[in-house]
C-alpha cells in the first residue's frame, strides 16, 4: 500500500509567531509528507479534533509562549479522549522555545520528542520517519 505520511503542524495557545512552524511544515513537505497547518491560536481541543479528522501520523506543535507545560500535556490528553484510547497511534512532537529542564516533564506527559532552536530540520524529518507509531 502506497502510504503517504500525514502531519498536523499545530500552533496551540496565544503566541502569534509561526515562522518556525512554517519552516518545519516546508521541511516535511519537501520530505514528501502531506502537512496540514492549523493556523494560529488553536486550542488543544481543536488540534486533537483536527488530528483525528485528518487521520495524521504526527502532531507537531510549535510553541513559543512559555505555556508548553500547560498546553502540550492537554493536547495529548485531548488526543486520547478524541481517539478513545490511552495508546496513541500518533507521534507527538514539540518545537519552539522550551527550556531543557521542562523536557523531562513533557516526555513524562506524552510528548515523544522535543526539538529546540537550531535543530537541523533534516534530523527532525529523519526522527519522524523512523519513529512513526503505525
Amino acid at each position, binding site marked *: 500500500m502506497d502510504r503517504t505520511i500525514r502531519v498536523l503542524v499545530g500552533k496551540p495557545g496565544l503566541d502569534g509567531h509561526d515562522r518556525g512552524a512554517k519552516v518545519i511544515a516546508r521541511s516535511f513537505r519537501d520530505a514528501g*509528507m502531506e502537512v*496540514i497547518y492549523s493556523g494560529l491560536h488553536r486550542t488543544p481541543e481543536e488540534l486533537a479534533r483536527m488530528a483525528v479528522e485528518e487521520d495524521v501520523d504526527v502532531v507537531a506543535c510549535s510553541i513559543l509562549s512559555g505555556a508548553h507545560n500547560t498546553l502540550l500535556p492537554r493536547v495529548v490528553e485531548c488526543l486520547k479522549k478524541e481517539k478513545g484510547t490511552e495508546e496513541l497511534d500518533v507521534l507527538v512532537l514539540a518545537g519552539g522555545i522550551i527550556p531543557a529542564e521542562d523536557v523531562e516533564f513533557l516526555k513524562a506527559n506524552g510528548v515523544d520528542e522535543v526539538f529546540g532552536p537550531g535543530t537541523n530540520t533534516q534530523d527532525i524529518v529523519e526522527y519522524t520517519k523512523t519513529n512513526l507509531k503505525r
Partner: protein
Amino acid sequence: MFSGYPGGMVLYLHNQIIQGLCERKRAGLARAVTLVENGSEHARHILEEAYRLRGHSKVIGITGSPGVGKSTLVDSLIGAIRERGDSVGVIAVDPSSPFTGGAILGDRVRVRSRTTDNEVFFRSLASRGYLGGLSRHTGDIITLFDAFGFDYVLVETVGTGQSEVDIMRYAHSVLVVMAPGLGDDIQAIKAGILEIGDVFCVNKADHPDADRAVAVLEAMLGLNRQWQWKPPVVKTVASQGKGVVELLGKIDEHLEFLKQNGLLEERVSRSYIAALEDNIRRDTVDRILTEARLDGTLDLVLTQLSQGKTYPAAVAKQLIGKYLCAEESDNQ
C-alpha cells in the same frame, strides 16, 4: 451484515471502520478516507458498504482561482448551514508537489470556526498528481461522507485556472467563486470554468470593482438563451459573512430545480460514469506500465522512440493490445 468477508485481523479492521461509518464515529470516517486515498486493499469492502448507504447528502462543489476566497467562503457557508441545524462535511483539496509528492494543506488556516462542532467534519486532501482540480479518489471519498449521513458535503477544489472542471462530474451543484478585478469580458466568454457554474459568486464585494465584475458575468450568462436554469450571480463578503445566507439559498434553489425536473438523477449517474472512468483509467494505465516495465518492453520501446523509429500513439496501441487483450481472467 459483515458475514461475507474473509476472516482474521483484516475482517476486524473492516468491521471497526464500517461500524464507525454506520455509527457516525468520526475516527471511523477519517480512517476510511485514508484507506481509500491510499488505494488500500481494505478499501474495497468499505466502499461496497458506503455505496450501499449513500444517497442522502447534497454535494456542493466550490471552485475558482487561487486567492478569490474559496476557503473563507467555506468557513461562512459552514456557519450558515449549521445555523439551520444541518450537518456538513467538508473536503478541501490542495496541490501536491510534482517533485516530492509532499503538500501543504492550508485550508484550515481560513476555516477557523466550528472546528470542534460535532456536526461538522473537515478533511484536507492533497491532489497527489491528479490534474482536474480534485484528487484521484475524491469521488469515492464524497461517497464515504455521504454514507456517513451529512446533510451537505462541500467539496473545495484546488485553486483552479481555466480548465480544471472535474468538480462538475461529482457535484450536484457547482459554485464558481470569482473576485473583482480578475479579468475582462473576453475572459468571461472563454470556454471552461465559467461554463460549469450553477451558481456564481463575486466575493470580496466590498471592493469598488465588484459591480463591474457582476455586470460582466451577467452579460456573459445573458448570451445563452437556452437556459433551463439561468445561473444566479450573488455578491458576498465572505470574511464578514455578508451575502452567504442568500448564496446558500440560491444553491438550494438550484438543487430543488434539479429535483423538480428529474435532473438530479442525471447528475448522480454522471458521477458514477466519472468514478468508472477514473477507476478504469487508473487500473489499466498502472497495469500496462507495470507489466511493460517488468518484462523489459518499456525500455525497448523507449529506445525505439528516442531513435525516431516509431511514435507514441502507435506504441500505446501496441501495449494496449499486448497487455490488456491477452488474458482477461484475472481475479477481478
